[in-house]
């Protein structure tokens, strides 16, 4: 109790004050690994209720008539893949199930590879009847950030003269009738930063005079920055892995309802599975903040007691 003005928890407070950060790292590792192992073994996921922003993403894709053009921009790299790949997977799955024509581009250099992976994971694996060039196409990466968006507003083929495999844009059936960005009724951007969702809103959605609807899946860091645009310029938004899990559960429910008796493959449950580790990590953060403050106030009280 010495040095703490008679506080009974002095030993505990001393322990907190001298706690080595490696114990915190270990606690975080357990908080994250525990749910991963449990969910991996049992296959159980936590239930999700969709927020209006996530429901709006689903509705925007559902409301588009079957065969409508959807422009996807993969504006992220593998570093943000933990949050963004599950939502990209589910959005592409819903579009494929609805029979939409999908046009993929990337404004981040590594986005093109992520497009290829998503196409393989969803379209090639589960929708083999969809043909490259007819139902979907990957135009790959284009340098220039906002300038690419500006050029797309007036001439899509000028911004992307060839697909990623070298086919001239004019010879690709899926983009016949598409001359400019505003010919896409729906724009989906999977965004991790700059250039990303914010630039698409500022340079394309705002300039199209409301002809393009835009939905986005973005990282947790970007979510607060994009709320000011929702729901006027931004029709729907999936914020971080939580938004991805909500949206994933709606898509899975809708597909299971349309095809009763089918089971959902594990690759379409990734976001919901990751909500377990997120729960563990968030709870630990709350506990750590409380413990840190207990130590802080005990120290403050002891200092005040010593003065008096």
């Amino acid at each position, binding site marked *: 109790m010495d040095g703490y003005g008679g506080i009974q928890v002095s030993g505990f407070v001393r322990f907190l004050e001298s706690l080595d950060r490696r114990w915190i790292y270990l606690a975080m590792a357990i908080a994250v690994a525990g749910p991963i192992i449990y969910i991996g073994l049992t296959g159980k996921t936590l239930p999700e209720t969709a927020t209006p922003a996530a429901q709006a993403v689903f509705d925007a894709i559902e409301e588009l008539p079957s065969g409508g053009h959807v422009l996807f921009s993969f504006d992220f790299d593998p570093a943000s893949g933990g949050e963004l790949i599950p939502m990209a997977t589910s959005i592409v799955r819903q579009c494929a199930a609805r029979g939409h024509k999908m046009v993929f581009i990337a404004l981040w250099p590594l986005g093109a590879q992520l497009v290829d992976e998503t196409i393989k994971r969803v379209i090639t694996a589960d929708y083999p009847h969809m043909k490259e060039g007819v139902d979907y196409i990957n135009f790959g990466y284009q340098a220039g950030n906002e300038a690419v968006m500006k050029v797309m507003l007036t001439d899509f083929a000028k911004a992307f003269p060839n697909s990623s495999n070298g086919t001239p844009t004019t010879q690709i059936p899926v983009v016949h009738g598409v001359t400019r960005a505003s010919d896409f009724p729906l724009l989906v951007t999977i965004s991790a930063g700059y250039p990303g969702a914010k630039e698409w809103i500022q340079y394309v959605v705002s300039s199209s005079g409301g002809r393009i609807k835009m939905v986005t899946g973005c990282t947790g860091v970007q979510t607060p920055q994009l709320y000011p645009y929702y729901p006027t310029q931004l029709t729907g938004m999936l914020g971080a892995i939580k938004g991805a899990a909500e949206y994933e559960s709606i898509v899975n429910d809708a597909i299971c309802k349309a095809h009763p008796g089918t089971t959902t493959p594990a690759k379409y449950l990734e976001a919901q599975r990751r909500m377990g580790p997120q729960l563990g990590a968030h709870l630990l*953060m709350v506990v750590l903040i409380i413990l840190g403050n207990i130590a802080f106030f005990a120290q403050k009280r002891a200092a005040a007691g010593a003065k008096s």
Partner: protein
Amino acid sequence: MKRMIPMWIAIVAGFAMLFSAFFPVTESLGEIFGDMFNVVAAIAFILGAGSLAKINLAKVSRRDPGWGYAAVTLACFALTLAAGLGKIGAAPNPKFAALAWSGDERAEGALFGWIYESALVPITSTMFALLAFYVASAAFRAFRAKNIDAILLLSTAFIVLLGRTFAGVVLTGWFPDWASGLRLENFSVYIMQVFNTAGNRAIIIGIALGVAATSLRILLGVDRSWMGTGGSK
């Protein structure tokens, strides 16, 4: 001259882009400068590669502290560049069976894809995942309820942290319907949509005004700091 030419390029291109948004007559001029920007952006990659090589080669040749990292950077850069530009495939092309690695460079097992899959993805994902550990340590040591502002920040953090997980549902899911707005999952959405939006909009408007003012200074040639301090003669 070194400063006058870039300045006039910026003025002409800037005004062309500005007017193209307001006057349909100048729309095509804006497109031309947009195309030129895309070409310049692509060329900037060469400049970037040259800069990376120059800095790291200098470090290696001077044997600066950590020159080994510079050597690894250069080796990885050269390997990736060769794999990408050389379009090295995994197997021989059926048309040219005698030529090894002449197959599709985008096929499974090709060198460029292998570098991406086996090195880049794990490295970047690991770096990002490490954040959780640092944030946890920082939360324990720095997040203190020192004053009213900090208490508000802490309370908001608790609501959002719990509201974004199933813990929110467990803790407050039993609240009656008339108090459903106070359920953590709903309250966290309310905080994001109302308080966060209001604050962010104020920041966005402020930034926009600042950008407009700075842009105007550059367009009029008043602000030349973007050209740097070198080569003033």
